[in-house]
């Protein structure tokens, strides 16, 4: 029932907004639909915490502590982004950047995007997972080119082609997985159900599964933004409308990584070695280092934070790759923190860019002087994402680094240097934007900053104190992943 609501509300919202998305009250309807989805996700969470994992509708859906936690974050960030988007997009439309038809496309696709992500998270079928991931690309590709500028078209085309190619590799991986599963489970729809695969994972053919994992990692890794296949990510984030940058960075990357981790559990069971973990550690570390050293060259503020997303996805992938209860716990915590912080930063960045009329960092100056709330939002968000205590990112990064020191000491210098370089690059750039003098006027309309501070407050709170039931929930999820 809850699953039906979680998937039904955004789907219905997508259809309704396809009809009425250009009306004056469309942003409110969008937010209301997201609110409904969030309530349903809370309901589902309560049930999972009380009764443990469930399957539904002839086992087509499967919810355990791992994915219910991602469902809740997805629904929550989708809600706050919808709240942020309503005044933001209103202002964009008022500046003549968007026609009513494009607003309709935007609102409808926003809900459909939420739907595809939630479908990817809740489905039990590895094939449907692939279909939903591909659909998530398709729903967002037209949103990246929403402004129809040459640069946004280029970014959208790159996104479409690169993610299309990437996701095709993942399909090949899924075919190989099915090929191995069919030997044990027999042909038919059940051979791709994750719960069934998990039950027989030790009997799956190891050579086939290791090859399948390589394809799955490359495929879903492209969508996670792992180097060297990360090229689409900064462009898509920089050229799309800000609410879309926030959900791409805060949610889609997580969902893609979720697919990788689900596959890893199966492959680990079949191989009994650390093959999948080693691959993930390698890709994660490479992304971390590549992104950290690209940061200082950025001129566009959204590209800067897009590279920071690649960096954090690298850390999380690395932590999942290390495995073990502490590292996995830290990875899950970091996923949460990154989602909340990065979307808050994108909200603040959106307003800063609106105020300055450009995304070029050299023209954004003196935010605190004219719009103190935007300035402080950006400054605090930046400190949080850079891992300054007492924000939650510090806690998760600290756990990851200490585990790395313990188990993979060779990796520690890379992580520390990359984090240091990232700190220097981002901090110096943000400092000049936040402080300093400016001639530019105040933002003429009140910014939507409640979501920014709500997210940052949560990140701060989780940095200081993780409630026992939440810690327990993460621990359960970590135990499932192993």
């Amino acid at each position, binding site marked *: 029932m809850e699953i039906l609501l979680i998937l039904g509300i955004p789907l219905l919202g997508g259809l309704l907004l396809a009809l009425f998305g250009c009306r004056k009250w469309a942003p409110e309807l969008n937010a209301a639909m997201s609110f409904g989805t969030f309530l349903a996700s809370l309901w589902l969470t309560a049930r999972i915490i009380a009764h443990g994992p469930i399957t539904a509708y002839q086992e087509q859906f499967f919810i355990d502590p791992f994915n219910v936690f991602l469902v809740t974050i997805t629904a929550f960030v989708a809600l706050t982004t919808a709240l942020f988007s309503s005044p933001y997009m209103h202002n964009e439309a008022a500046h003549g950047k968007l026609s009513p038809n494009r607003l309709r496309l935007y609102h409808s696709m926003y809900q459909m995007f939420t739907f595809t992500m939630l479908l990817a998270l809740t489905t039990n*079928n590895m*094939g*449907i997972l*692939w*279909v939903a991931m*591909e*659909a998530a690309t*398709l729903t967002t*590709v*037209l949103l990246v*080119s929403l402004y*129809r*500028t*040459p*640069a946004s*078209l*280029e*970014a*959208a*085309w*790159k996104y*479409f*082609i690169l993610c*299309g*190619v990437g996701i*095709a590799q993942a*399909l*090949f991986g*899924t*075919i*190989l997985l*099915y*090929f191995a599963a*069919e*030997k044990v489970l027999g*042909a*038919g*729809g059940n*051979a*791709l159900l994750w719960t069934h695969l998990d039950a027989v994972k030790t009997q799956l*053919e190891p*050579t*086939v599964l290791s*090859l399948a994992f390589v394809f799955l990692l490359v495929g879903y890794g492209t969508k996670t933004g792992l180097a060297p296949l990360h090229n689409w990510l900064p*462009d898509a984030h*920089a*050229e799309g409308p800000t609410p879309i940058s926030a959900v791409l960075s805060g949610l889609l990357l997580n969902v893609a990584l979720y697919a990788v981790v689900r596959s890893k559990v199966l492959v680990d069971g079949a191989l009994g070695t650390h093959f999948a973990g080693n691959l993930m550690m390698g890709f994660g570390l490479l992304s971390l280092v590549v992104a950290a050293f*690209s940061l200082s*060259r950025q*001129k566009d503020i959204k590209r800067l934070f897009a590279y920071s997303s690649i960096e954090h996805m690298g850390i999380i992938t690395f932590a999942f790759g290390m495995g073990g209860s502490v590292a996995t716990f830290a990875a899950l915590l970091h996923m949460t923190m990154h989602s909340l912080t990065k979307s808050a930063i994108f909200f603040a960045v959106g307003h800063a860019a609106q105020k300055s009329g450009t995304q070029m960092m050299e023209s954004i100056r003196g935010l605190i002087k004219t719009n103190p709330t935007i300035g402080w939002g950006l400054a605090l968000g930046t400190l949080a994402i850079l891992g300054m205590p007492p924000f939650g990112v510090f806690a998760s990064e600290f756990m990851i680094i200490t585990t790395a020191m313990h188990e993979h000491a060779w990796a520690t210098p890379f992580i520390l240097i990359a984090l240091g370089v990232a700190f220097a690059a981002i901090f110096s750039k943000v400092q000049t934007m936040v402080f300093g003098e400016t001639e530019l006027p105040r933002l003429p309309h009140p910014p939507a900053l409640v979501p920014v501070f709500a997210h940052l407050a949560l990140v701060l709170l989780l940095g200081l104190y993780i409630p026992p039931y939440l810690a327990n929930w993460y621990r359960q999820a970590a135990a499932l992943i192993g």
Partner: protein
Amino acid sequence: MAFSQQLINLFAALLLLIAFAMLSQRRILSLINLFAMQGLMLTTSTAIVAWSSHQHHLYYSAALTLIIKVIALPWLLHRLIRKLNVKWDVEPMINIPSTMLIGLALVVFSFNLALPISQLAGTITRSTLGIAMASVLLSFMMMITRRKAVPQVIGFLAMENGLFFAATSSTYGMPMVVELGIALDVLVGSFIFGIFFFQIRETFDSLDTRHMEKLKED
């Protein structure tokens, strides 16, 4: 049984041949026709697999392939290039001999990669898995080497053909619900690239993706 196996091998070989032909084809119009032909080979081979292995759900897959890849998509592409007036476009700058040589190396590579898996497969079509993988990689290469938007998309669709062939040749096809989902994605994707062609054309006055290299890393 041996006869149908021979037939499937024949169609697999034709599929690979068409993949090479697409790699070397400069004209957009011929490229679309080749794509339709590849779809037809795929339909026929799927139908033969269905007939010889008594897997009835594969008939549906074959029908779906026929409708989408042989009829709907080529028709859509023909319409698009007529509307965009790029019917006689010729791509000037590709080095065909060297792409062919790299293509040959890719085929050898994928046959080697597929060898251990083919030996595990119990299906009558197992020898064709290498061909499927090769045509995926060849289409992938076509996407990389092409400069224009339409050939890139055809490469993308041809890659999907290769993946579909991999699914039928190694496992007698994916579960029906997944196959329907994939077909839906391909259809929606095709509509989106159709929209894209018009947007790119409107903005850049050409369908050449060389105009789209402004977003450099710097």
